[in-house]
């Protein structure tokens, strides 16, 4: 029941925020903040309670580790259920969702001044969609939530974005919509394949796990899912929407895109593609891993060449999510642990980088790296934060991102040494783009004579919390690993 309320709080909060905004924009911001925080506390409470009681595990392997569920009949003619459930994986990702949701509201506190109500409405509805994706156990509901996040995101980019917002928004929408349609057909194909095998109409995840498919059909259906998730991830031939969408979106939009929307793709790979079609996934793994390695290098090289700060950060995402894809398809416990860790840490560190860049743009009205230089002299706290998150992004040991990528590399090494070696070069190139960003923007002489206000308390606190989280995950990742231990250990088995 509580899972249902998580979503209702966001939906209702969005409507309420919109209604009050006309008379009181500030109240609208507080309502949004309160709604997301309430959800955050609820999820945290749920996690702590179950962690103490019995320990929390992950249900990737089809074992029943859901510690919280709601299951109502929704459209009985088609066997569609409103089925939400939470395990360790969804718990962490929903926590991340709420955390970055709070961050987005705070980051747009002074940035968004027109259409405040509709902005927060969209923001909360996107979060509701993402939460639905992370919790849905009925594939129809999953698709429904998957689509629910697109439209408000489209508005977020198209209305409050930067110079080329319309182009970016349309591109984003078409890419995700087309890939979503592919997934819908794949879901239906699976649904009817299951019906022909068993005579039961169901979209239920647990039932569909045991569908027997001939390998050829399984490969096609798997590809339908895979492409939808690969577009979101984004994997290399499908990545072109990402740079435009991230760059043109307002700060809150960029945080959510990079921190959460990309994770829904990774989540889909782990939750759906591999467990539903283990045979086909195994067959496909070499292709996916090759594309992942290409993405790691290609994203890093493109990031190095950017002069627009937001675009730079956007391209680093392609590189980092390449590690996630590599980790999932390396098919062993270490790599999977690494992929999950990368998902969480990338969400925090890239979200933070977008907050930093957004704060700079709000102050300087430019994102061009050429127009900057020597900023450390005028905004030391902001510059320090930027340095910290750039280091996290390049994989400095001691910070969370390092743990994730290191484990992925270790896991990949066991499977394919060449790929691990090439991917390691990607870590190296990350050093170049991250340090170039810091050097060109913050160090050297302040030739443009910038005099800017430094971080305010709201921004400082937010970035401080994010730093602490990354440090914690980097120095003591054990709690997260314990969550995934069982699933990670069983993960290699389902591939056989």
């Amino acid at each position: 029941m509580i899972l249902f309320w998580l979503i209702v709080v966001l939906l209702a909060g969005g409507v309420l925020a919109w209604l009050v905004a006309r008379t009181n924009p500030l109240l609208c911001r507080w309502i949004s903040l309160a709604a997301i925080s309430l959800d955050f506390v609820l999820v945290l409470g749920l996690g702590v309670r179950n962690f103490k009681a019995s320990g929390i595990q992950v249900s990737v392997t089809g074992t029943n580790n859901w510690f919280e569920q709601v299951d109502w009949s929704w459209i009985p003619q088609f066997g569609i259920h409103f089925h939400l459930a939470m395990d360790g994986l969804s718990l962490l990702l929903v926590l991340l969702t709420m955390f970055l949701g709070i961050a987005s509201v705070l980051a747009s506190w002074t940035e968004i001044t027109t259409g405040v109500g509709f902005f927060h409405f969209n923001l909360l509805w996107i979060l509701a969609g993402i939460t639905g994706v992370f919790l849905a156990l009925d594939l129809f509901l999953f698709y429904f939530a998957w689509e629910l996040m697109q439209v408000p995101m489209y508005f977020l980019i198209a209305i409050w974005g930067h110079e080329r917002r319309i182009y970016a928004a349309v591109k984003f929408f078409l890419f995700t919509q087309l890939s979503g349609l592919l997934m819908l057909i794949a879901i239906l194909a699976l649904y009817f394949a299951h019906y022909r095998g068993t005579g039961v109409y169901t979209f239920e995840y647990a039932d569909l796990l045991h569908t027997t498919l001939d390998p050829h059909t399984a490969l096609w259906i798997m590809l339908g899912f895979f492409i939808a998730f690969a577009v979101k991830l984004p994997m290399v031939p499908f990545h072109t929407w990402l740079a435009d969408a991230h760059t043109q979106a307002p700060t809150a939009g960029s945080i959510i895109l990079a921190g959460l929307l990309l994770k829904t793709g990774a989540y889909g790979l782990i939750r759906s593609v591999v467990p539903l079609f283990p045979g086909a996934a195994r067959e496909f793994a070499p292709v996916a891993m090759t594309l992942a390695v290409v993405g790691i290098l290609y994203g890093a090289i493109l990031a190095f060449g950017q002069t627009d700060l937001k675009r730079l950060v956007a391209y680093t995402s392609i590189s980092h999510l390449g590690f996630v894809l590599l980790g999932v398809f390396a098919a062993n416990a270490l790599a999977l642990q690494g992929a999950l860790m990368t998902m969480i840490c990338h969400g925090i560190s890239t979200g933070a980088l977008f907050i930093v860049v957004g704060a700079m743009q709000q102050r300087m009205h430019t994102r061009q790296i050429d127009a900057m230089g020597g900023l450390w002299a005028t905004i030391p706290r902001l510059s320090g934060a930027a340095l910290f998150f750039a280091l996290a992004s390049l994989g400095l040991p001691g910070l969370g991102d390092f743990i994730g990528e290191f484990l992925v590399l270790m896991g990949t090494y066991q499977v394919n040494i060449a790929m691990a070696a090439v991917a390691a070069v990607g870590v190296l190139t990350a050093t170049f783009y991250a340090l170039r960003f810091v050097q060109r923007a913050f160090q050297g002489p302040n030739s443009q004579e910038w005099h800017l206000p430094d971080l305010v308390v709201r921004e400082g606190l937010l970035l401080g919390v994010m730093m602490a989280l990354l440090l914690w995950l980097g120095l003591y990742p054990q709690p997260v690993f314990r969550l995934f231990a069982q699933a990670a250990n069983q993960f290699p088995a389902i591939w056989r």
Partner: protein
Amino acid sequence: MTASDLLALLPLLLVAATSVIVMLAAAVHRSHAVALVLTLAGLAGAFFSVFFGHLRQVTALLVIDSYALFFMGLIVAASFMVALLAYGYLAEREGNREEFYILILVATFGAMVLAASTHFVSFFLGLEILSVALYALISYLHGRALPVEAGIKYLVLAAASAAFLLFGMALIYADLGTMDFARMAQLLDSRVAVNPALLLPGVILIFTGIGFKLALVPFHMWTPDVYEGAPAPVTAFVATVSKGGMFALLLRYFHRSGAQSFASVFLVLSIIAVASMFAGNLLALLQNNVKRILAYSSIAHMGYLLVAFQIGGPLGGGAAAFYLVAYFVMTLGAFGVVTLLSERRRDADLLDDYRGLFWRRPALALVFTAMLLSLAGIPLTAGFLGKFYIVAAGASAGAWALILILVTTSAIGLFYYLRIVVVLYQQPAASDRDHEPIPLRAPAAALVLAVLTVILVWLGVYPSRC
């Protein structure tokens, strides 16, 4: 004809009587408001009488079954909405207004007859009652160039297609010796004395007449011109009531008479469905006029409906009925917004009329967005579930080619719907008059739009009670 026959025909009789009453009232004293109120009362009465319908065959011509009652309810409800939309629209325009409602009632009556007919005679009578009223409705603003042009185009083409239809009926009658749908099915089943050389051309010619009304490719040429030229509320009427009545007849005629069991007929209908989906969606990309975009999009939507019809069976039939309801809601909603935004001199049909609408009239822009997203098939709306039903029905019947084309073409459709949505949210230039909010001129129409939006979302989220 007995009393219970008359009771069964109550919805039809109420609508017919209302048209006479409005005419008499207008003869005694012309009053726009009175005409509207009488019309609404008659339509509401007919709508409620649908729920207490007596199921029976009334003469050889008409059958009142739950299927006919469903379509009658839908048609009457749509006419009710159109009448409300038209009130504010007509009030601002020149000429007499009361006759509009008489014509609407007559056309509604014709569409209802189509939905209930089981015989060629009632089929043709219903069609002509509908068509003749539509000629006048389309060119109702007869002092203006565009409506008259559209009316004449529609008149010439509709008359020609009716001639084809009659000839087709004659061929079938010559072959089977009956004009009753059920009897035809018996004869076809027994395969005695069936001469395909007469029968198949007959079926195809009849489909020419049906395809014209539904605006299926290749009988769609009139659609963009008539949609553009007709007054916006009439366009809504043509797009919903006229097509809905004809679609009801198509479902009944082909399922009852078993004509679809011929492989060649099935193939021809499949080709027409595919051509409609492609032509509608691709041609809409080239348009800059909102009414024309919606016209081409309606061609595509009829193609989707034909896919559901082709799939057949309980799933296909259910999908078609649901999709038709969704189509009614979103089409009425979209043309309702066009109606509400139209200025006295001309209808709001250029993309420029919608630029930055969100910043001037956010509620209206959101309604239009919801309708367009529904037409595009985005979740949370009725349009999505409608498409989902069709795709699911198609997948269960193994009609992969048809549903793949449906999905592909509706993806093409996204482009032009998004084009309109994008324009709605563009920031207006700081200087121009667009900043001034437009006063709400037609509260009744606004109410209709609110109701339609609620239905749209309700059907899209919680359809199981329908």
